[in-house]
């Protein structure tokens, strides 16, 4: 499974959606992912890719991890994989 497919699968599971209903341009809000689901998603991503994601729930937007859309999360994970390989 590609990085993109894995991340979409993680987010789809949190959002209780089919992976085909998760688009790259969707925001987490679009998908109905709240703050607790987000923290669970970050954990699942860290476990799936064996990376550490810089993320502080006190201010998600200020973290060095762009969570504005599904696509931005995929790009950020790709960058972290390269950085932490």
């Amino acid at each position, binding site marked *: 499974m590609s990085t993109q497919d894995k991340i979409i699968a993680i987010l789809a599971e949190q959002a209780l959606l089919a992976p085909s209903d998760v688009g790259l341009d969707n925001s987490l809000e679009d998908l109905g992912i709240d703050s607790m689901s987000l*923290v669970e998603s970050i954990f699942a991503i860290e476990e799936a890719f064996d990376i550490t994601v810089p993320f502080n729930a*006190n*201010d998600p937007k200020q973290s060095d991890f762009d969570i504005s859309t599904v696509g931005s999360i995929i790009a950020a994970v790709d960058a972290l994989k390269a950085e932490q390989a």
Partner: protein
Amino acid sequence: MTRRVVITGAGTINPLGHSVDQTMQAMKDGQCGIGPLDIRDVDRLSIQIGGQVKNYDEQAHFNRQQIALYDRFTQFTLLAAREALSQSGLTFNGALADNAGVILGTSGGGLNTQDENYRVVYEEGKNRVHPFIVPKLMNSAAVSQVSMEWNLRGPSFTVATACASSNHAMGQAFNMVRSGMATVMVTGGSESMLCFGGIKAWEGLRVMSKDACRPFSATRNGMVQGEGAGIFVFEDYEHAKARGAQILCEVAGFAMSSDASDIVMPSKQGAARAIAGALRDAKLDRDEVGYINAHGTGTAANDKTECAAVADVFGAHADKLMISSTKSMHGHLIGGTGAVELLACIMALRDGVIAPTIGYEEPDPECALDVVPNVARDAVVDVALSNAFAFGGLNAVIALRKV
């Protein structure tokens, strides 16, 4: 029967000191008790700071048999209780022993004992643990050990409501003395979860700061854990007066509420109902409150919600009262936090010194109250409140009054 309730003894051990005097001096000086954690496997933690009790040697206070039975949270409890009971001057025999009990708050109980012994069986693969692990780790161990050391034979139990445990415990003790169910109650709380597993669990929530606890500051980035205990002697006022006891202050009222909404996000309405309830219970006018010891965890969510609740309850008076979070200095003692923070309220009432919120860097428009930034302040205060708002929406607020 309704009786007045006063505090006739206080004791503590926490990151700011090993006694009430040391702790209050540190609060007056705005000292920070938070620093690098010195625990096993700290290199595998992403959060490596905490408010640890420093220069602590258990063998200086307890013998080998006691250490086999006393988890660190129980040790802290007993040391704080020794100071509090010694100050009160009380001894417990006959009818007084039967009418005196212990109600303490803790969240993790003997978490260090659990952590160490899971290591032994899972990591080290051993098939045997020490015979006294259960009586050492149980959440009620500290209550039982206090009751045994001072012969307290009345109502005794442990309260666990996460970060509000101590306030709920003290509220219960207050109501027992007020209602006549007990003459004296030893109360407060203790926590010691600064071990690998204890911090690892908190890391998961992503609400911990990696550098400092800065409540109400726009730059705040999360909470910092601490450890320690605060213990108080709550006594029937007439009983205390008759024996000429030194009275630190009066416990005037208490209220609790449940948000009934979310397991981690706080609610303004739930907090406001507990604050307003404590004022009502104490028959106080809101304008009489001079100081609030805030829950003030330093998380984005708590601090703005708490300030909004205070603004709602106090109206225009919210801008006149002082509200500070001493967690900036000692960290969040979880189930023991309300007990240590009650010391800041006693200091305000008795000594006229308001403990500061240290680490304050930049105003946050959502926390636009007088948070006593960075430096302690002299002020005459007649009534003080202590807030505690726990995960799961369990709120408990105590009102204290100068005697």
